[in-house]
């Protein structure tokens, strides 16, 4: 497989000749031959990210074939939104992605605003930017913990998830919710910043930077981490287009695609922000890209805190949202989540309820097509690490 030949994968390099013929790039597997074992990882398995399952055919420790199974978290948000008024949509969309709910909130509000032609006041824009960037910090922190945890280094997950909790405290102060913030409503945001928030946020940034230093020392400069992640799950630049790969996964393969810069939304065009890329395309490069993006996000939060205007409206002039009707039309609004392009496609038919809402989660391809391709020839022990390094989030796949 091309994937294998390009990679610097140092595991047991399997001899493909012992496998039966391949058809359409997939080996034909005879389970009766007792050469292969079929195992399921997940949904009840600590190594899978969230509630999903991977059906594996293994030979020894090596994965021969992988199939991702979804639907354990399917709640059909899109169907439910078709039954709900526009204003009733925003509390439910944040449930689409648990670690980073704000991107959903932003997208669904922005889609409605785009369709209804509403301009959000500047201060609300800044508060949205702050919220989005803070949620990126939280999500990345959780991801680092996940990546270290999936390789068996519990200490780092303990630190980062603990640190994320401090960020959740900030969220709680700012929005009134710990995990589901439900902060952005169509037209603006729900609350002003509480007193003293900026100082507390700045102190937390310093604290987080200190932790990032420790993580650099113990995680990124860890011989065993390097030996396991380097060469694992290599995404080639050709694959990026072919599979619709986005976010840090694409950037680690050299694709300069970050919606915050390519199609700036909220206040990102006013911020000092640089594209972060790498060229190796393996799990370690992805970890590095994410680590640097986390640092950048901390930087951005600091910048935003300095620039939020003190005065100003936080919500545009809105009609009675209880009976809000949006004129006919369709739109696609996207934002950069920690996993990549997160978008909402909304079709309105002029009634009080949306005709169709579709949430495009970045993990949609990452966790199915890409994972199924990259998992082949990988050791079972690396599967968890690989899944985390793709940063998959099942609820946004099946919605």
């Amino acid at each position: 497989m091309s994937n294998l030949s390009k990679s610097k994968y140092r595991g047991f390099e399997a001899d493909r000749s012992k496998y039966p013929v391949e058809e359409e790039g997939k080996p034909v597997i005879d389970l009766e031959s007792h050469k292969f074992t079929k195992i399921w990882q997940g949904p009840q398995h600590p190594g899978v990210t969230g509630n999903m399952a991977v059906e594996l055919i293994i030979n020894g420790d090596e994965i021969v074939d992988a199939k991702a199974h979804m639907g354990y978290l399917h709640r059909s948000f899109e169907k439910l939104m078709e039954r709900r008024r526009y204003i009733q949509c925003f509390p439910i969309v944040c449930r689409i992605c648990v670690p980073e709910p704000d991107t959903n909130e932003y997208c669904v509000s922005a889609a409605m605003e785009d369709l209804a032609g509403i301009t959000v006041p500047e201060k609300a824009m800044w508060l949205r930017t702050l919220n989005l960037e803070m949620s990126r910090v939280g999500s990345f922190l959780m991801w680092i913990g996940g990546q270290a945890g999936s390789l068996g280094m519990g200490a780092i997950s303990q630190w980062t998830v603990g640190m994320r909790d401090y960020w959740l405290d900030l969220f709680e102060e700012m929005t009134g919710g710990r995990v589901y913030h439900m902060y952005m409503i169509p037209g603006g945001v729900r609350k002003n910043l509480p007193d003293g928030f900026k100082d507390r946020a700045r102190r937390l940034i310093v604290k987080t930077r200190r932790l990032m230093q420790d993580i650099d020392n113990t995680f990124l400069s860890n011989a065993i981490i390097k030996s396991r992640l380097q060469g694992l799950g290599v995404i080639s630049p050709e694959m990026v287009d072919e599979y619709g790969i986005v976010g840090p996964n694409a950037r680690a393969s050299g694709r300069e695609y970050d919606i915050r810069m390519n199609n700036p939304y909220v206040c990102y065009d006013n911020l000092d922000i640089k594209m972060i890329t790498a060229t190796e395309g393996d799990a370690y490069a992805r970890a590095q890209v994410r680590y640097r993006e986390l640092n950048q996000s901390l930087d951005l939060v600091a910048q935003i805190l300095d620039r939020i205007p003190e005065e100003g409206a936080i919500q545009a002039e809105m009609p009675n949202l209880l009976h809000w009707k949006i004129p006919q039309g369709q739109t696609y609004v996207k934002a950069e989540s920690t996993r990549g392009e997160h978008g909402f496609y909304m079709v309105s038919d002029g009634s009080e309820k949306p005709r169709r809402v579709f949430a495009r989660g970045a993990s949609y391809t990452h966790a199915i097509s890409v994972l199924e391709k990259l998992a082949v020839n990988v050791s079972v022990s690396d599967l968890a690490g690989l899944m985390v390094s793709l940063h998959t989030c099942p609820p946004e796949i099946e919605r």
Partner: protein
Amino acid sequence: MEQLIRKIKGMVHLKAYRKQRDDLYFITVEKAQLEMILSHLKKNEGFTHLAFLQAVDFIEDSRFQLTYMLYNYETGVNLGVLVLIDRDKPEMNSIHKLWAHGWQYQRELHELYGIDFPGSPRVHESFVLEGWEEMPPMRRDFDTLEYSERTFFQRPGRSTNDPKEYMKEKMYKNYAASPRIRRDDE
């Protein structure tokens, strides 16, 4: 972008064209010409990224609208290619050869909308549902609340009052109903 639209107009029958934002356009094309236009956009016009493929149920017109959302990295423009297909016999050509993740969306659409994509790998496999026996649930005529009430056990004992009716009951119960108009033609 205008140039591109003109170019596309020269190539295929463009049924509709709309600009939503500076970085978002929609074009509606014929079902038969879709594959051609998609591969042209991908190979020659730089629309290499397929963000998603989704369906919208326009039950009143008995149509499904398929939306292929493309993205051009160079110009930063999203282009939604729309196709209307028949709702009674929903079938569409597969794009799994153009994009390696196309089959995923097609599998989802087959399960949730009942749209068939002949030739798409694993299209008949179940995606999120298991043991589903009703009509494809994302269709507009499937009533999810009714299904939920029928299938899952609701906790009983809830009742609500309409303030309007309740106040009438309490305050002006005997207030006469509006008289019927006596008409000749009845």
